[in-house]
C-alpha cells in the first residue's frame, strides 16, 4: 500500500506508456470487427474501465474488513480512495456503454443486465461516499463506512444475478470477453494490453488519492489541535 503511494512517478509513467501502446494496438493495429467495424474499438476502453470499477469495489471490501479487524485508519483511507475511484470508473463505464449502445442497438439506454447492474452499483457507492460526507467523527465514520462497504460488495453477485434473471433466463451474456471464440488473436492482445494499462493507471490514481488522504488527515488533526488551544 505504501509502495503505490511512494512510487507515483514510476506508476504514472508506466501507465502513460502502456496507455499509448494500448491506444495504438486498439485503434490501429487490431483489425476492425466483422459486424460492428470500428465502433467495436470502444471495447478496448469500455472493458478495462469496467474492470477498474469492479477492482475498486473489491478493494473497498477488503479494506473495510481490514479496518474492522486492525482498527488502523490507513485501511479506512484506502477504502475511501478506492470508493471514489470506483464511482468514477463505473460512471465512465455506464457512459461508454451508452455511447456504444447507440450505434449498435440504436438506443442510448437499454435495460441490458450488465448496464443495469453497473448503474445500481454506481448508486450504492455514491451512497457510501454520501455517508462519508455527512459523518463527522473520523473513527466512527470509518466504522460506519466499513459496514456499508462490506454490505454493498456482498450485494454485487446478487445484483448481477437478479438483473440477468430480470431480463429473461435464457438470454446469454451480451458480450463474453476472453472466452469469445470470435475475438481475433490481435483483438485479444490489444484488450489484454489495455487491461494491464488501466490496472496500472488504477494503481497510480489510488496512490495519488492515498497521499492526498494522508494530507487531509494531517490537516484535520492540525485544525483540531488549533481549535483545542483557542
Amino acid at each position, binding site marked *: 500500500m505504501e509502495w503505490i503511494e511512494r512510487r507515483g512517478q514510476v506508476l504514472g509513467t508506466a501507465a502513460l506508456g502502456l496507455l499509448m501502446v494500448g491506444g495504438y494496438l486498439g485503434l490501429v493495429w487490431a483489425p476492425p470487427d466483422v459486424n460492428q467495424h470500428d465502433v467495436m474499438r470502444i471495447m478496448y476502453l469500455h472493458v478495462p474501465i469496467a474492470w477498474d470499477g469492479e477492482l475498486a469495489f473489491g478493494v473497498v471490501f477488503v479494506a473495510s474488513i481490514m479496518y474492522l479487524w486492525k482498527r488502523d485508519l490507513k485501511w479506512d483511507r484506502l477504502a475511501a480512495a478506492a470508493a471514489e475511484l470506483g464511482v468514477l470508473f463505473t460512471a465512465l463505464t455506464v457512459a461508454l456503454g451508452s455511447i456504444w449502445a447507440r450505434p449498435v442497438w440504436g438506443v442510448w439506454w437499454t435495460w441490458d443486465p450488465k448496464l443495469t447492474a453497473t448503474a445500481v452499483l454506481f448508486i450504492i457507492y455514491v451512497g*457510501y461516499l*454520501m*455517508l462519508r460526507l*455527512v459523518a463527522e467523527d473520523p473513527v466512527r465514520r470509518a466504522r460506519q463506512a466499513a459496514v*456499508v462497504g462490506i454490505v454493498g460488495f456482498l450485494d454485487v453477485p*446478487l445484483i448481477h444475478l437478479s438483473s440477468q434473471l430480470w431480463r429473461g*433466463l435464457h438470454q446469454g451474456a451480451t458480450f463474453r470477453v476472453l472466452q469469445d471464440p470470435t475475438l481475433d488473436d490481435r483483438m485479444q492482445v490489444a484488450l489484454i494490453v489495455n487491461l494491464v494499462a488501466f490496472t496500472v493507471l488504477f494503481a497510480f490514481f489510488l496512490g495519488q488519492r492515498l497521499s492526498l488522504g494522508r494530507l487531509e488527515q494531517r490537516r484535520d488533526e492540525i485544525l483540531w489541535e488549533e481549535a483545542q488551544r483557542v
Partner: protein
Amino acid sequence: MWADQVWAVLRKDVLLEARSRANVNAIVFFAGLVLLVFSFALGPNRAHLQTAAAGILWLALIFSGVLAFGRIYQIEAENGAFEGLLLVAQNRSAIYLGKMLGATVVMLLVEIVLVPLMAVLYDLDLSGGMPILLLACLLGTIGFAAVGALYGALTMSLRAREVLLPLLLLPVTVPILLGAVKATGVALNGGHGDLAVWIELLVAFDIVFVTAGLLTFEYAVGE
C-alpha cells in the same frame, strides 16, 4: 440467553407499536395512500393497473418500510434509551435480530391491510395465488428488514438521516425488489414464469444479509 434478549427486544418493539398505535396507523395509511396515488398516476385502465399491481404494491411497501426502519431507532433516541440497550445486551447481534424481527412484524401488519385494499382497488382475484403471495411477502419483507434494521441503526445518529437511509437502502435491496415483484406478479396474474428461481434468489438474499447484519451490527452502532 441470546435468544431471550432477541425476544425481549422484539417484544418491547411490538408492544410499543401496539400500545401507541399512532405509528402503525400512520404507516398503514401512508402505504394505502401510495397505492392510491400510483393509480391516479397510471390512469383508470383496469387491465393496465392489474399488470402493474405487483410493482405498485412493493413500491408502497418500500416507501412505508423506509419510514418504519427509521422509526424503530427513533423511539430509542429519547432519554438515551439506546445506550441503555447497548449496555445490557451481552451480544449486540441480539439487538439487531430483535429490531429486524420487530420491523418485519410491523411490515407484515401493513401488508395484511394493504393486500386486500389492493385487491379491491384493482379488482384482483387473490384466491388462486395465495400461498405464493404469502411466501413472496414474507421473504421480501425479511430481506428489506434485514438491510433496513442495519442501515437504520447506522444512520440514526447522523444528520440528514432521513435522506441517507433511503439512499443507502434502496439500491442494495434492488434484488429483493426484482424478486418480490416477479413472484407477486405470478401470484396475482397467474403463469409460472421462473417462480422457483425468484424464490431462490429471495432466500439467498435473506440468508446473506441477515448473516451480514448479525456480524456487522456492532460496528454500525455505539463504540
